[in-house]
């Protein structure tokens, strides 16, 4: 299926190609990594370095930070590296870009490959210059007098090397590129409009498709009349079972044609809605009551969340000479390749998925139904087909972050030490549900974890740090509840119950930077604190809010976040992710929640589903704690995790009212203030 090593080098052209075989575990993958090597790095005759990665760039910045990893070991500038990402013909197999894994698990492979390439190049340089007293900078090797470039060394060579892991990696002290704030390599393309996304592709004879959609999930079609659409000049109408589509070279004409299709549907009754979802879960999936003897019992709830990337799901598919090529905005090009092959009845070797820049993913582009739709239509019509979901389709077929319920039963002793922790979650999964605090015999039960339930009336899936935001909202709120009951400062209460050195350090760092003044809550000042550990990264936050008692509106004024993520590759990129997590996190905490009635999605656009806006964003300060003894940890998700708790805790400090439900929309705040 996959080209062998020799074929591969031929495909890429001459020069020096470094390949690597990594055991699955090193790449953080659950399934077996193919045993046949695939290229990671090539140095061509012009000295250009190309790095091949099955990961994709959706805004998180690995396009730049992976290049930094290679540049560091290779001794070249970051700018001299060309990234080829998410192309299933050219890049090594990958399990998908999610879970803050690119830096943790793929990064080490990049470094190893680059170190191997440097070893080969230095050997060639030493033969050429007759000495092994050599140094390299910006791709130029010198003995102090004479110089030879990587390009000159690679010229006319066809060397393929398999990484044996023996090449010595640079130490932290030697780093020149890693750890330096580096401007993003995709910057110029993105500020000029030149960056290519799936929707920017144009193929000869390409048609835009619009598909008939049911009015709600679970609806079945009773009748169909496409005659008026068929009568429109130049419009192609496809009726293929459930797949009903209209196609035209102009997307507006395709859209007009869709409006002419008449269909009647049978709709199932709704079992629950936005407000009753939590009770429905509790009724249908009873947990075992372990709360015997607990002093504190709390129930926390969250709603369904839309990913709402600004780029809707988009794909172009073209079938040519028996081979299908699909350009897809996706987080999992290799998974989509398999799905397309299966849907079309083709061998995987006959399908190529190419991933241009992705306009935001957040977990929602792990599935790519639109690519299968485009591929099927390309197969049926014989023409290249683009499918661009409308915003309403994006809200309808999103794999929503699930609504969830968490029950905590806990106790403390008279010294403010936690003595009991019984934690049960419904639908939030186990991620970040660990106690973190020193509690002997803590019990954690995970019900309705992802993939184990069919109670959701529509698709659900991973939403940036899946379930972790819910779990930490519950845990860190419960910690605050107990600190207040014990009349202990919430920072002090946490430190008293936590022995983990990294955890203590992030808490103290965030508190110091914030100017945390001790004292039991509520103080009326609107200050909150929370801590989390996700994807190997510790994050602590302190926030200040104001609550309008009349309107119930919460204004977040300031957020200070401290993060320990081990070695930091690109401090600027890491801070961007922290800021992004905080800004995006304001949504699920304050405004965002999918409105639905059974399988009927009531939100179809940003009119009713409110994303964070400029006016909502507080002053944000981020601190990266230096920890060069630890390998790089996750960066794309950890800082979104404590947002619910830190704001809820600050609201409690402001007005003395505990919020048990996210998002904290004004009506819920008012209801809590009144009760």
């Amino acid at each position: 299926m996959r080209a062998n090593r020799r074929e591969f080098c031929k495909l890429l052209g001459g020069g020096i190609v470094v390949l690597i075989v990594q055991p699955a575990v090193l790449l953080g993958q659950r399934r077996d990594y193919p045993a046949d090597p695939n290229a990671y790095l090539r140095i061509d005759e012009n000295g250009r370095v190309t790095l091949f990665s099955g990961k994709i760039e959706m805004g998180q910045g690995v396009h730049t930070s992976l290049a930094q990893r290679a540049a560091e070991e290779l001794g070249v500038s970051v700018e001299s590296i060309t990234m080829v990402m998410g192309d299933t013909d050219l890049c090594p197999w990958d399990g998908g870009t999610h879970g803050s894994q690119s830096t943790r698990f793929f990064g080490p492979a990049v470094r190893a490959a680059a170190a191997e390439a440097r070893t080969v190049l230095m050997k060639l340089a030493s033969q050429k210059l007759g000495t092994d007293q050599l140094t390299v900078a910006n791709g130029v090797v010198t003995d102090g007098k004479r110089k030879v470039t990587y390009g000159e060394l690679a010229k006319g060579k066809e060397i393929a090397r398999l990484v044996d892991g023996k090449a010595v990696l640079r130490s932290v002290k030697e780093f020149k590129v890693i750890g330096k704030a580096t401007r993003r390599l995709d910057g110029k393309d993105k500020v000029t409009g030149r960056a290519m996304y799936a929707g920017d592709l144009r193929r000869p004879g390409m048609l835009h498709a619009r598909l008939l959609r049911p009015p709600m999930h679970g609806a079945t079609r009773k009748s169909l009349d496409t005659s008026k659409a068929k009568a429109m000049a130049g419009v192609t109408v496809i009726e293929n079972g459930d797949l009903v589509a209209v196609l035209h070279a102009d997307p507006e004409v395709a859209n007009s044609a869709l409006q002419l299709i008449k269909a009647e549907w049978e709709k199932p009754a709704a079992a629950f809605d936005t407000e009753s979802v939590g009770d429905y879960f509790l009724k249908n999936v009873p947990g075992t009551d372990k709360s015997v003897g607990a002093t504190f019992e709390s129930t926390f709830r969250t709603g369904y969340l839309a990913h709402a990337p600004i780029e809707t799901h988009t794909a172009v598919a073209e079938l040519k000479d028996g081979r299908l090529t699909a350009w897809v905005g996706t987080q999992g090009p290799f998974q989509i390749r398999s799905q397309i092959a299966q849907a079309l009845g083709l061998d995987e070797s006959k399908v190529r998925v190419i991933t241009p820049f992705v306009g935001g993913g957040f977990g929602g582009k792990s599935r790519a139904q639109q690519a299968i739709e485009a591929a099927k239509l390309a197969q049926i019509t014989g023409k290249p087909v683009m499918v661009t979901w409308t915003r309403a389709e994006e809200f309808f077929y999103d794999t929503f972050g699930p609504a969830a319920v968490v029950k905590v039963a806990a106790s403390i002793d008279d010294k403010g030490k936690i003595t009991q922790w019984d934690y049960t979650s419904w639908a939030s999964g186990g991620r970040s549900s660990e106690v973190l605090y020193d509690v002997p015999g803590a019990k954690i039960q995970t019900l309705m974890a992802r993939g184990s339930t069919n109670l959701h009336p529509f698709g659900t899936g991973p939403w940036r740090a899946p379930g972790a935001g819910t779990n930490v909202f519950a845990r860190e709120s419960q910690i605050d509840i107990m600190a207040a009951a014990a009349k202990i400062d919430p920072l002090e209460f946490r430190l008293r119950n936590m022995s983990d050195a990294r955890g203590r350090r992030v808490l103290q760092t965030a508190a110091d930077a914030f100017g945390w003044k001790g004292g039991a809550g509520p103080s009326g000042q609107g200050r909150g604190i929370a801590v989390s550990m996700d994807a190997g990264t510790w994050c602590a936050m302190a926030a200040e809010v104001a609550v309008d008692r009349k309107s119930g509106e919460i204004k977040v004024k300031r957020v200070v976040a401290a993060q320990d993520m081990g070695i930091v590759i690109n401090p600027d990129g890491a801070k961007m992710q922290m800021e992004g997590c905080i800004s995006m996190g304001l949504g699920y905490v304050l405004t965002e929640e999918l409105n639905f009635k059974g399988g009927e999605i009531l939100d179809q656009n940003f009119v009713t589903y409110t994303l964070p806006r400029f006016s909502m964003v507080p002053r944000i300060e981020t601190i990266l704690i230096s920890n060069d003894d630890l390998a790089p940890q996750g960066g794309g998700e950890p800082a979104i995790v404590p947002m619910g708790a830190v704001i809820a805790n600050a609201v409690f400090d402001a007005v003395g009212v505990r919020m048990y439900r996210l998002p904290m929309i004004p009506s819920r705040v008012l209801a809590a203030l009144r009760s």
Partner: protein
Amino acid sequence: MQHDIRFRLNGRPVSMDTDDQRLLLWVLRGDLELTGTKYGCGLGICGACTVAVDGQAMRSCQTRLGDVQGKNVVTIEGLERDGKLHPLQQAFIEHGGFQCGFCTSGMIMNAWSLLQQKPHPSRDAIVEEMDGNLCRCGAHQRIIAAIQEASK
């Protein structure tokens, strides 16, 4: 209705014989092959499709082709001069005012239009004028910093 449409696009005259009810967004992205202007919501709420018409920010997904007849349209592709980035574009790079980049063209065009009207806006004015543009990645703080930098 079929019409002879004439307007200036990024400084150059454009002449088309087409339906004047078509939306500017799809004409730009299709017929005129300028794909920097993005579709995000189709209702003029997200701002990804923002272009400038006679110096004013307009949502091209809500603008009929007939509405730009005889006018001056500037898109993200029209900001560079002789291969040199506009100071706003440069500031977006330096401050990291983007992540996925999909809202970026609209952000820059909205900010460019703001600076046409108000060369030195206050921070509050920037927030107010940019509030209708959505960024899902959360680059807001850096976008504000970039606009402030470019308006010095």
